[in-house]
């Protein structure tokens, strides 16, 4: 366990008890200029890293605040919706009871469109349908990601009080499973605003400890609860689960409304190879954080 290094801790300022080491270091200095340069460079890198992490933590805290703020209004919205429904139902009931002899229309036919599944050519534009499609897809892919994490774990890693599962990318790639992960991340990127997607992907679910990537299973399970601002943009996704046993992954996603979304060209169909580095950049994935298999130079 790492001990605290608080300058106010008086124990840190007590007289150093091993004089011999001190005398020895004075007698024969071990560091030459090159070694001091190396150490100074390491210090600079670590200081920069600390500053970056502090900035990221601030962004994370802001995102969490934004998300929790929207959650505060949920009961109000639900109450308003209930009130509206109650008033509407009462109105309909009153209308029905005050017009004797008029019977409400009965549905006699079921539209055939309802049974047609969306394809790459058909692009549904209703935001409700899109929302439910995305939610459904999100649910499927979340489950799949969790299955992946369950299939390739170094089971039993309990770090920092959470259940983490090490992701063996080499094994995933060998089994043809990386597309599960790839399409999962793709969907998150396409669905959420960039800052929320960053939070979900980098801070919430995945954790890198000593160079090993872990999936936090508990947090992945809670992904469904992350609110999405559906009215801000419309995303159409279809055929996302079209994966055969080879190297083909077919999915299609189109961002339509919001120009701020960093996915101007999301249509990727029938890809038989990996993403190129340029495509990864265009999709807004940061090179340092994507799995290696997403890049093919």
């Amino acid at each position: 366990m790492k001990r605290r290094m608080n300058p106010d801790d008086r124990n840190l300022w007590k007289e150093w008890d091993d004089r011999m080491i001190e005398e020895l270091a004075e007698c024969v200095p071990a560091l030459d200029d090159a070694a001091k340069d190396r150490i100074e460079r390491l210090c600079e890198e670590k200081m920069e890293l600390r500053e970056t992490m502090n900035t990221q933590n601030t962004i994370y805290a802001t995102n969490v605040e934004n998300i929790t703020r929207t959650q505060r209004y949920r009961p109000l919205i639900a109450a308003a919706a209930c009130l509206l429904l109650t008033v509407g139902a009462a109105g309909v009931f009153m209308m029905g009871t005050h017009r004797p002899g008029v019977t409400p229309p009965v549905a006699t036919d079921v539209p055939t469109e309802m049974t047609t599944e969306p394809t790459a050519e058909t692009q549904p534009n209703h935001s409700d349908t899109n929302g439910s499609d995305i939610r459904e897809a999100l649910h499927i892919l979340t489950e799949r990601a969790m299955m992946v994490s369950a299939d390739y774990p170094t089971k039993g890693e309990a770090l920092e009080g959470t259940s983490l599962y090490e992701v063996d990318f080499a094994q995933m790639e060998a089994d043809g499973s990386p597309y599960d992960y790839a399409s999962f991340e793709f969907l998150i990127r396409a669905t959420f605003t960039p800052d929320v997607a960053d939070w979900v992907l980098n801070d919430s679910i995945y954790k890198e400890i000593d160079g090993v990537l872990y999936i936090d299973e508990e947090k992945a399970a809670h992904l469904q609860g992350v609110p999405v601002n559906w009215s801000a943009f419309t995303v159409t996704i279809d055929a996302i689960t079209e994966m055969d046993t080879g190297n083909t992954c077919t999915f299609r996603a189109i961002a339509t409304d919001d120009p701020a979304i960093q996915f101007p060209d999301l249509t990727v169909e029938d890809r038989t190879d990996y993403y190129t580095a340029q495509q990864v950049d265009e999709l807004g994935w940061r090179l340092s954080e994507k799995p290696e298999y997403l890049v093919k130079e």
Partner: protein
Amino acid sequence: MTDQEWLALMHKDAKKGRRALIEQYGNLVYAIVLNKLKASASREDIEDCVSDVFVAVFTAADSFSLGHGTLKTYISTIAKRTAIDAWRKISYRQNTTGYLEEAVPTELPSEEETPEETVSRSLQKQRLWEIVRSLGEPDTTIVIRQYFYEQTAREIGKALSMTAAAVQKRSVRARQRIKELLEADGYDYRKGDAV
């Protein structure tokens, strides 16, 4: 440079302040870290740990109040603690199951050791250090570099502008001299204990 001067420099020009601290205390921190880690760590690990020490000091520089003691004692304690943390991390990485006390000698006595033995060991350590210092240059430097910094004869020769063979020869003579002086003190080096 005094502690106050260093703090003033840090506030004026942090980069220069950082370099100045490394210049002033780099060797001390390196020796402390090396003393804890040399049994298990590579040179890169040791330099990494040394940089961790300085980063901890730089980070805390804004909240320093030097009334508690000197910067030197503060840095030394940070170095010792950071080195022990690094030792734990490296041991975990290497699947070492031993305890720190088994691999690295510390001030703590073992369970079997009596207080008298502890004092005796400390005195022997002190006496050995006095003898090493009394050897005179370049023998003192050769012995320290060879047995504390664990440098090779070639590395020592390069640092002292001598051939590796000359370093080796001087090292043999120095050890012989140390043995004679220890025996004159009544120390039986074959048993590893005072007689």
